[in-house]
């Protein structure tokens, strides 16, 4: 899951939890899932460096991701 999807899921979970009609068992399951989302989002935020790559196309049409040399 991307950070975007995790945070979206987290928002949905919180909204669902804030809704009083959620039954208790689901609420507890949602809470657990929310905690997992938070932990995973925090760990993906911990990635500290901007990575710059390059997407190129080979003669046969295959796509390749490689390091991009910024000093080029």
């Amino acid at each position: 899951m991307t950070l975007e999807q995790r945070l979206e899921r987290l928002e949905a979970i919180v909204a669902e939890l804030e809704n009083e009609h959620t039954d208790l068992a689901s609420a507890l399951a949602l809470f657990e899932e929310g905690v997992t989302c938070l932990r995973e989002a925090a760990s993906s935020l911990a990635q500290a460096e901007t990575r710059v790559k390059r997407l190129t196309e080979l003669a046969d049409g295959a796509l390749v991701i490689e390091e991009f040399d910024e000093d080029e």
Partner: protein
Amino acid sequence: MRRRATGASASLGDGPTLFDTSQSAESLLEDLGDIFPGASPRSAIAVSTLTQTAKDVVEGAFIPIWVRGEVTDFKAHRNGHWYFGLRDLASQLRCVVWSRDQLGMPAAPDDGMQITALGQLGVYAARGEMQFTIKRMEAEGDGLWRKAFEATRAKLDADGLFAPGRKRALPRHPQCIAIVTSGSGAALRDVIAVLRRRAPGVELVVVHAAVQGENAPRELVRALRRVARWGGAELVIIARGGGSLEDLWAFNHERVVRAVAACPVPTISAVGHEVDISLCDLVADFRAATPSAAAESAVTSRVEVQLAMHTLRRRLLHAVEERLYVPKARAANAAHSLAAATTDHLRSRGERLGALSGRLHALSPLATLERGYAVAHDASGRTLASVTDFAEGLAFTLRLRDGDVSAVARERTKSGEPRA
């Protein structure tokens, strides 16, 4: 001239000599006319010879030059060539643009447009007209570019490409962003710098394309398709630094604009400076004034993300507490009520039991026996409670507090009767 001419005629050997003074000037000319084409009716030349000669002379005399004038009487011919006049207050010049030379021109000029044109002056031999063959053309105030821009815009607009409803929301926290631009351009450097500062950890994927010149439209379209085919990016930035309207032209090219519209990933367009608006800008999901601004809009800063997560965490905890509050309270209430109910229940049961057992106790013959009374039973266990239950000689049993005694009735006397 004459000298050369007479010399030439002398060389033929049968004409008059230079020094033949008997001839008049007129007859001399007539003689020359036999030798020089067009010098006399007899040597009159064909029209095509003259026009071809004029063409050679004129074309030899002029190198390609820039000419300025107002377009008049423009016609695009079926064969694809453009014909029009260029004029000023005093003169007019017939002009032609061959279809193959139109590729580098954004649009055909309109009548009344002031243009400067680079071309070759020549003669259109078939008509005997002077003709200016134009290779490049610029209109005052970027008129041709503007016209082409408007024409393409109208076409794409008719196809609904600029409809507000087409705009997609940008992802707020993209972790992988593709950038379609020149791998060596200033735009790319700006975008990388902003992302480094604002959202470290984001992955940027450069998809190189020429951003100006003849190949730019084709390369931009290919790069956009490559991004789509790859599928790894959550957002695409298509960017180019500032330049003239002509430099930025690829971003107004119909095919490029359609490729941006067809991109399955949300797009940010940042072409040129703030004042430049390209058709790519109009069709993209978001228009940024500059490449740096595009990078700013592309990501939420890390600090903001952290704040948002903090808030979500708080809401999550609060929500679950709130959510548990009612059930907890209900559970507590229920436990309390249960305890209370049980106690009540037991208490009343206990009381009733006490009362009942008291009554039972009171009713119990055993209690009476306790006090020293005895109960008489016959052999069948029937209680003999009355004198009349006895017959003389009846064997019966006396039940006492601590056991039974066998007895025989000897005599009976009813209460109130004298003993027998």
